[in-house]
């Protein structure tokens, strides 16, 4: 019996989800980190009402990207440490399906943190972040940088200084997402019409990166 592409993806993502449901390790670490981060930002930047409008998008996205780094490191490192990746590679599954499976798990966890941050920041910063457009932007952005992140974390998990290398490798490549997403967020919050341009750019970059990741993933897991 041949397992279909979708079944492979769901099996891998489902495995990550089951591990997470039992241990609740990743999501709690990411959530607590995200909470700490927005508190630290509000102290460090001494945000008053006017400054908040300017910076809230930046705080949201920097927090999300750093939180995703935590999750990505763990998610791929555990595959290597327990030898599970070798098993995945032995299975007659397309490499890109392994990528999509791992990516789906990471994007889900980071997306959940994002959905948690929006109401939290709405309450703490006194600004309405629970906007349909903003939620859409957040989901697309998370989708995009989790794709690059999954690819890069697979690479850095195989190096000596893995935890240290992932941010160095990922932050420059995540910058296009940060740039467009922050601008789109700011546009939505201030009611400027130009948010659509930024959102389209963000979506475009996301598609390009995701396709590149699909095509190239096979090369970074091959022995």
């Amino acid at each position, binding site marked *: 019996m041949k397992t279909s592409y979708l079944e492979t993806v769901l099996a891998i993502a489902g495995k990550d989800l089951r591990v997470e449901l039992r241990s609740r390790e990743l999501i709690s670490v990411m959530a607590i980190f995200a909470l700490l981060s927005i508190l630290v930002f509000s102290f460090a930047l001494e945000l008053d009402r006017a400054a908040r409008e300017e910076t809230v998008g930046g705080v949201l996205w920097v927090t999300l990207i750093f939180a995703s780094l935590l999750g990505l490191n763990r998610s791929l490192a555990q595959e290597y440490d327990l030898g599970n990746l070798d098993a995945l590679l032995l299975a007659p599954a397309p490499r890109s399906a392994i990528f999509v499976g791992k990516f789906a798990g990471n994007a889900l966890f980071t997306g959940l943190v994002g959905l948690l941050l929006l109401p939290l920041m709405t309450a703490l910063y006194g600004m309405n972040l629970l906007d349909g457009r903003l939620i859409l932007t957040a989901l697309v952005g998370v989708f995009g940088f989790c794709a*690059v992140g999954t*690819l*890069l974390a697979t*690479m*850095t998990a*195989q*190096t*000596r*200084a893995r935890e240290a*290398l992932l941010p*160095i*490798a990922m932050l*420059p*490549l995540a*910058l*296009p997402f940060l*740039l467009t997403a922050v601008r789109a967020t700011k546009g939505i919050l201030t009611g400027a019409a130009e948010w659509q341009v930024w959102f389209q*750019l963000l979506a475009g970059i996301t598609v*390009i*990166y995701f396709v*590149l990741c699909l095509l*190239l993933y096979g*090369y*970074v897991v*091959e022995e």
Partner: protein
Amino acid sequence: MTIELESKPMPLLLRALTIMTVLGFATTLYLGLFAAGTDIQQGDVQRIFYIHMPSFFGAFTAFGLTVLGGVLALARESDKWDKIALAGVEVGLAFALINLLTGSIWARPIWNTWWTWDPRLTSAAVMCLTYAAYLMLRAGIEDANRRRAFMSVYGIFAFVTVLITLFIIRIVPDTIHPVIVGASPQNAQGSFEATSGVVLALLPSMALWLTVMPITLIWHRYRLEERREGLDRLKLKLLSE
């Protein structure tokens, strides 16, 4: 026991390219520093432009070769192209730093600051950091096959930052960085017109930095990498004896 490091003689083409680079650099310096007229508003500092813009395009060529090297290294599992990709990153990074530095020197009198967080300046700095990350990541991977595959993938991805730097002026309208070819953004500070005198000094410089110079330097760097590997093999041989 005598130990000899194998060394290939320098190919004739590389010699010719090297001479062309040196002569070409001297000529374009003369054109930019003396032959071209002084800008009526900015004065002599405008002459830095004859290095500033070409150096970015030199980096563009070098990083482009990294992409080509990466694709071929992946497709053919070729170490040769992997070395070319590495050489492209190092040469391109040097060019990109020249680009940042010259821009900074120009900006001091014209914008009255060494640096500003303008979209294009930021993206150029990010581009440099991306390629610096390439070198750090590369140093962290010991297995040669793995290194080839990973760095090829990263080199292909990193090129996105080069494209962003190139096109950000057209996408983000609130930059103060002037555009010399085509219409400048509204807020651009320090534009000047591309008169025939400017073009006359710029074109040879562009041609040199875009083609001959990066290719020559990358070729030299590639040969250096080959010799370094030869040295490693020799050390290994000595140890095993």
